[in-house]
């Protein structure tokens, strides 16, 4: 590889670093992403320039065209509520590609070794054991990431149940597959063959499926983030196998930052990653029972709530998972605009793990063109609830459940929450008395200052909007 190519690869790697740096602040995020894209394009264009006899160029370009069409189509069509499954899908195909690349490279390594052995003479190893180990890692973990991501996709897209799937033999099967993966990896190092590689691939696929099946719906985003980090590490290992700095640095960046992000998210939910992954496996499902309570509550019609809101000076909206499900963000924004015109000061209180994915609420509300300044992060708004007339909780539940502060045994105990309970009035918009993701009752629903407006969030918000307009 000529020196200038290596330098260009390094520059592309710096581009990836700058991309991540940019993505961590709202002002620089878009430019950062474009820098990353440019670095990726330049990096992928290089082989066409410097590799002496690159074969199958037309076919390769055709495949790239197909992939580009697919990627752009998917990226354009996806709705913002479906972002988690989109990320899962893109991540899965990346992991799959990494596994296939490693399989091909294993094949190539075996060819080279065979040619070397055919020369006779003393036994020489063309590749060190560590290269085989890295190849095995990429094949196995890439397959896990592929299969796991597809299952998370199916769960989130509701192609299958989003509840934890557990069956009696699960822990045994799980352990068996893990053991199988380890044995085949060791075999790849000691006596590699393409059959072993394919076997490793298949074991990885099965393992990926079993890893994600027992994870409950709302835990899925954490798993996506984890699989994202996995794919990054496989790409890094692939970079080592192919002696390519760009793959190594890019993959490692994603691996490291993805792992860190996963831990950050888990901490924001007051859970450990192990608990999320293996909670269901160990027996007790992490998802609560989901039984609706029949204790008395105060419910009201849209007109009553409209009066409450219409004559309040200060309103805070708490959007949650249900808002995403109902796709009610646009209607909600209209309501807020109307209230704003009436002179009411309205903000959105954004809990870090509200919705289906961390930061998901921000994306949804950004799509609905909610002005940036109206979105207030938890830490900044928590002090203001006590001066608030009405808190409107739209499809959220756990993120305002005071049990996180008061009930030491609760699954969400210790998770920081939005202090909606400090406001003068609270309005919940939900369809039933079923609990939220954590499966525990929310005492705030039974509080004397709380009013419930039952129904799908989008429908209820529509009625509420009309009622406020009619005031």
């Amino acid at each position, binding site marked *: 590889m000529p020196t200038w190519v290596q330098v260009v690869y390094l520059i592309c790697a710096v581009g990836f*670093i700058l991309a*991540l740096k940019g*993505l*961590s*602040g*709202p002002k620089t*995020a*878009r430019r950062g*992403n474009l820098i990353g894209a440019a670095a*990726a394009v330049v*990096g*992928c264009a290089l082989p066409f320039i410097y590799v002496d006899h690159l*074969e*199958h160029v037309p076919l390769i370009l*055709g495949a790239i065209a197909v*992939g580009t069409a697919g*990627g*752009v189509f998917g*990226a354009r069509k*996806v709705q*913002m509520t479906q*972002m988690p499954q989109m*990320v899962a899908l*893109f*991540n899965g*195909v*990346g992991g*799959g*590609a*990494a596994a296939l*690349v490693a399989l*091909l490279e294993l094949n*190539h390594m075996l060819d080279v070794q065979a040619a070397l052995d055919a020369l006779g003479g003393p036994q020489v190893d063309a590749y*060190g054991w*560590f290269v085989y180990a890295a190849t095995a890692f990429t094949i196995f973990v890439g397959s896990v990431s592929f299969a796991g991501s597809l299952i998370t996709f199916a769960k989130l897209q509701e192609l299958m149940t989003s509840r934890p799937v557990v069956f009696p033999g699960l822990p045994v099967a799980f352990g068996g597959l893990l053991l199988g993966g380890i044995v085949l990896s060791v075999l790849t190092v000691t006596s590699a063959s393409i059959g072993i590689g394919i076997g490793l691939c298949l074991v990885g696929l099965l393992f990926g499926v079993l890893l994600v099946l027992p994870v409950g719906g709302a835990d899925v985003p954490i798993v996506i983030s984890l699989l994202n980090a996995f794919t990054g590490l496989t*790409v*890094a290992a*692939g970079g080592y196998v192919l002696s*390519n700095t760009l793959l*190594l*640095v890019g993959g*490692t960046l*994603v*691996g*490291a*930052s993805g792992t*860190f*992000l996963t831990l950050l998210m888990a901490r924001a939910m007051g859970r450990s990653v192990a608990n999320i992954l293996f909670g269901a496996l160990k027996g007790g499902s992490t998802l609560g029972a989901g039984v609706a309570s029949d204790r008395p509550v105060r419910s009201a019609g849209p007109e009553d709530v409209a009066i409450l809101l219409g004559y309040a000076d200060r309103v805070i909206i708490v959007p949650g998972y249900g808002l995403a499900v109902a796709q009610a963000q646009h209607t909600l924004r209209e309501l807020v605009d109307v209230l*704003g015109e009436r002179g009411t000061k*309205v903000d959105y209180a*954004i809990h*870090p793990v509200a919705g289906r994915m*961390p930061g998901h609420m*921000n*994306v949804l509300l950004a799509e609905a*063109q909610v*002005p*940036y300044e*109206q979105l207030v*992060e938890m830490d900044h708004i928590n002090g203001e609830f006590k001066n608030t007339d009405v808190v409107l909780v739209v499809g959220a539940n756990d993120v305002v459940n005071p049990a996180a502060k008061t009930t030491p045994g609760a699954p969400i105990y210790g998770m920081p929450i939005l202090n909606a309970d400090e406001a003068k009035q609270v309005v919940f918009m939900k369809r039933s008395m079923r609990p939220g993701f954590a499966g525990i009752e929310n005492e705030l629903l039974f509080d004397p200052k709380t009013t419930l407006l039952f129904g799908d969030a989008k429908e209820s918000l529509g009625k509420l909007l009309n009622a406020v307009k009619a005031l």
Partner: protein
Amino acid sequence: MNEGVVWLTIFVLSVFVGIEVISKVSSTLHTPLMSGANAIHGIILLGAILVTGSTHSTVALVVGLVAIVLATVNMVGGFVVTDRMLQMFVRKKPASEKEGAR
């Protein structure tokens, strides 16, 4: 320097860069950050091009082309969808001035 140690050094330093860069991010941007990072590992496309461009067997060629398609979907789709999301974040500023809801 030993080749293996070189790779290890680059790996270790990249780990620190990755962690340090991310450790300051606000939760507002977690979703685009995740999809942006996701797009970056689409660079496996480069690896797929390299192995496919040097293969001579038909089976390997087919597998390689599949890998290229998958990797391209990851890379292109990832960057495009991230840009789409971030575009919405940028748009917000002027919108707020128009409305003055606050």
